[in-house]
């Protein structure tokens, strides 16, 4: 059951370039548990789309099945959404993207949806470098089916059920990097100030952008023995640097005064200003990032922030040389070779 939120807002709510308030980017009332990390992630998505002044109807919200996959109903009410089947959001999104490359695709999945049943589709989605934002709301557990370990649960971590996980965890960031994704980030639902710019950067990135967002499940995996609890994550996360995004149209940005170490231009002319911090990574070297991830794992650290960036990669459409015009916009006359050609085909078959 979903209830529409009251759209009443104080008349002076700030508006973005399109003249929309943030409320325009909201969705139906969430039915998730109070305190669920996923709701915070939804809020960050709302914020990012608002700040980037995206047209809501030019966004497609895609998901699989799970508590996480329900969230597209809770943000961007004026966008089309597709809550597909478990683990198969990647293929549905690929098709949708092939049909209309002009939209922004935001895919939401869970760690069960991605790392278990969806592992094959996820890997191939990355490999094709589909132009989309992929957010995995990673809580190390199957929320909707009441608390089984997922494949991202760390060895030794135990959910509310109390049995420690024995199996090697899947590190989605490591996988995405080794499959050539050009934008790979890890974040935490509780850290909006980090997450919002990461989402913005991901939206602006041309190609596949992964955000593996730790998002605790308060009901089944927020206990002491869990490495996906609010507490554990707060204690072990280690930001690798911060950045801010300067959209192409914008000229001056007032931001935190950290020193800008590097400035990277994105595909559409936007600019990423990287503010490196002590633990900062060389985010443009696959090799160095992979070893930092391995190292962090050994030290029980969780690296967060933008982990890898490569702005040169070509997205699926570019790789297969498809028309700039969305496929769903072609008319019959543009698609059908017609009767004369058909007659010549007939002739060649005689």
């Amino acid at each position, binding site marked *: *059951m*979903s209830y529409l939120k009251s759209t009443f807002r104080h008349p002076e709510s700030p508006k973005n370039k399109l003249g929309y308030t943030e409320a325009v980017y909201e969705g139906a009332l969430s039915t998730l548990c109070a305190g669920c990390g996923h709701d915070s992630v939804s809020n960050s998505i709302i914020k990012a789309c608002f700040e980037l002044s995206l*047209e*809501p*109807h*030019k966004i*497609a919200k895609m998901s699989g099945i799970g508590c996480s996959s329900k969230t*597209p*109903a809770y943000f961007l009410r*004026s*966008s*089309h*959404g*597709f*809550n*597909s*089947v478990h683990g*198969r959001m*990647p*293929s*549905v999104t*690929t*098709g*949708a*993207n*092939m*049909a*209309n490359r*002009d*939209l922004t695709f935001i895919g939401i999945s869970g760690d069960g949806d991605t790392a278990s049943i969806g592992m*094959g*589709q996820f*890997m*191939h989605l990355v490999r*094709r470098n589909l132009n989309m934002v992929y957010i995995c709301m990673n809580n190390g557990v199957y929320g909707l089916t009441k608390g089984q370990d997922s494949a991202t649960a760390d060895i030794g971590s135990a959910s509310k059920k109390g049995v420690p996980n024995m199996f090697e965890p899947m590190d989605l960031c490591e996988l995405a990097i080794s499959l050539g994704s050009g934008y790979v980030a890890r974040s935490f639902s509780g850290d909006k100030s980090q997450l919002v710019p990461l989402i913005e950067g991901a939206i602006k990135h041309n190609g596949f952008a992964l955000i593996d967002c730790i998002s605790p499940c308060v009901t089944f995996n927020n206990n002491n023995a869990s490495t996906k609890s609010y507490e554990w994550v707060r204690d072990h996360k280690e930001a690798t640097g911060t950045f801010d995004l300067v959209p192409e149209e914008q000229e001056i940005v007032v931001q935190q005064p950290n020193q800008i170490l590097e400035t990277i231009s994105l595909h559409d002319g936007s600019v990423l200003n990287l503010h490196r911090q002590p633990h900062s990574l060389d985010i443009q070297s696959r090799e160095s990032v992979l070893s930092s991830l391995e190292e962090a794992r050994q030290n029980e650290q969780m690296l967060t922030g933008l982990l890898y960036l490569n702005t040169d990669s070509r997205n*699926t459409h570019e790789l*297969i*040389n*498809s*028309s*700039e*015009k*969305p*496929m*769903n916009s*072609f008319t*019959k006359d*543009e*698609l*059908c*070779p*017609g*009767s004369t*050609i*058909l*007659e010549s*085909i*007939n002739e060649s*078959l*005689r």
Partner: protein
Amino acid sequence: MRLEAINEFVIRFANVNGTGSASANNMFSKAVFRMGVPVSPKNIFPSNIQGLPTWFEVRVTESGYLGSRGDVDFVVAINGQTLRKDYDTLVPGGYFLYDSTKALPRGFERDDVIDIGIPLTQMCIDNYSNPRQRQLFKNIIYVGALAYLFNMEFEVLTNMVKEQFAKKEKLIPPNVGALELGYNYAKEHYPDTCGLSVSRRDNVGDAIMIDGNSATGLGAVYGGATVCGWYPITPSTSVVEGFEKYAKKYRIDEHGKNKFALLQSEDELSAIGMAIGANWMGARAFTATSGPGLSLMGEFLGLAYFAEIPVVLVDVQRSGPSTGMPTRTQQSDVLSAAYASHGDTKQVVLIPCDPADCFEMMAKAFDVADRLQTPVIVLSDLDLGMNDHMSRPFVWDDNREYDRGKVLNAEQLENMKERWGRYKDVDGDGIGYRTYPGTHPTKGAYFTRGSSHDDYAAYTEDSSVYEANMERLVLKWETAKDVAPHPQIKYRDKDSKIAAIFYGTSAQASYEALDGLEAEGIKINTCRIKSFPFHNDIGSFIQEHDQIFVIEQNRDGQMRSLLISEFNFGTNRMQSILNIDGMPIRARRIKRKIERMLNGEKVSPFTTAHSSVEGA
């Protein structure tokens, strides 16, 4: 005694696969066609790449019967491994052409068979030095020999060689030479040996020769498909290859870019997922597969059914179950296609029977899918898909528009007075109006889901809302009966009480068999099924006859089962009492329902509050 026939015989080539025999055998078959004589070739190949027995059967059929006839009149036995079997295959009076470089072993002494030994291997050794040439030309030599034996127009063959190698001219003389070698050898050693011949006629009209899968691929191009995700599997692969070939030719935009997006997916789940996603976004998209893939697509087909997303799936059937015989034909996915997916799901199925049908039905499938907002499965098979068939030519009316079904554009949304509901049945046909993402800034967005939903696409667990939605889908199913292609019913005799029902590739052989029976005075009316759900005419047709043969190519009589269970013939005595609201069925409601039914009242079978007002 030897067989004598002009333009009416069956020849079977026995080869080893990977030796280039298929193209030589095809050349023979096409030459017959070019002489104006109808022909029907069948490639019978193993599920492997090289070195195993393979056969190629060509039926020369002046009368135009293109189905398989049965029995073999002439064998070209090039494969030592199967010599015995091929020999035994011949009907009395048949001909046995073999490689006489080595003498036939003992036991090949049928006196009702005419032997034609040609030392093919030796001739190749004598004439060619390169081993690959020796292998390839062996095939061309026997084609040359056949030209003599069947008294064919030699020029037809040489012209074909010239066409084929138009771009590699230097290959023409050696090929023509090989044909001549064979021709001359046969002329010298086997004059007047063969009672079978091919003689020019004008019986093919404007027919074309093409395999069904290429035709299907072409149909997808004409039907406006732009997105295709697919995973290779025999015998469906060439559907996509056909689509790609024609799209690359006719679908390039002014910047040299593709007006289509073709992706090889990682498996069949992904392939159908892509097709669903693209159709949801408003492009026409399809995928093609065979049995194992169909099984894997079940969950997604259910999603598309319930979320009402058009999608076109081509299933080129092969012999099941499981991996079965991947290079053999069958019509055994009928039930799995019709009832694909768990829950109360039914799928629309279209069944072509020749390449022109493949082309036409594939193009039409997109209209049907868009109109009905549901998956449409085009059910072909290996025989149709992978063999060349003589066929009516393709036709396209340039005035024909794509029927995109009920889709609201920005303007319509803008001007809409009433509240729009994605799944609201405003026209009484069970079909709502959909929107493509990105259409309008504030109107027309909705949330698509495989979970239960109300008219406005909102999630619901409300029993009566769920039930109303399910009943609307039944209404849509009724609508589908008229939208899908209608059956082809033919009366040989309006009073005859005997009939036959068939579909797809069972049609050709059935018509021939029934013509034969008619010649003997037995008149059997026919119904060729072209789609599921069944049109009401099929029901009437069945009612009109007392004895009906249902002819199909599977073990379990799947179409017959489907007919029986959809029409409920003779089973009025079994009445349903159904509960579908998600709650356990309730005793009081069953009781009231039975009481009313026993009273002879006409009541819905559903026990739920919604449809029968029998309390909560």
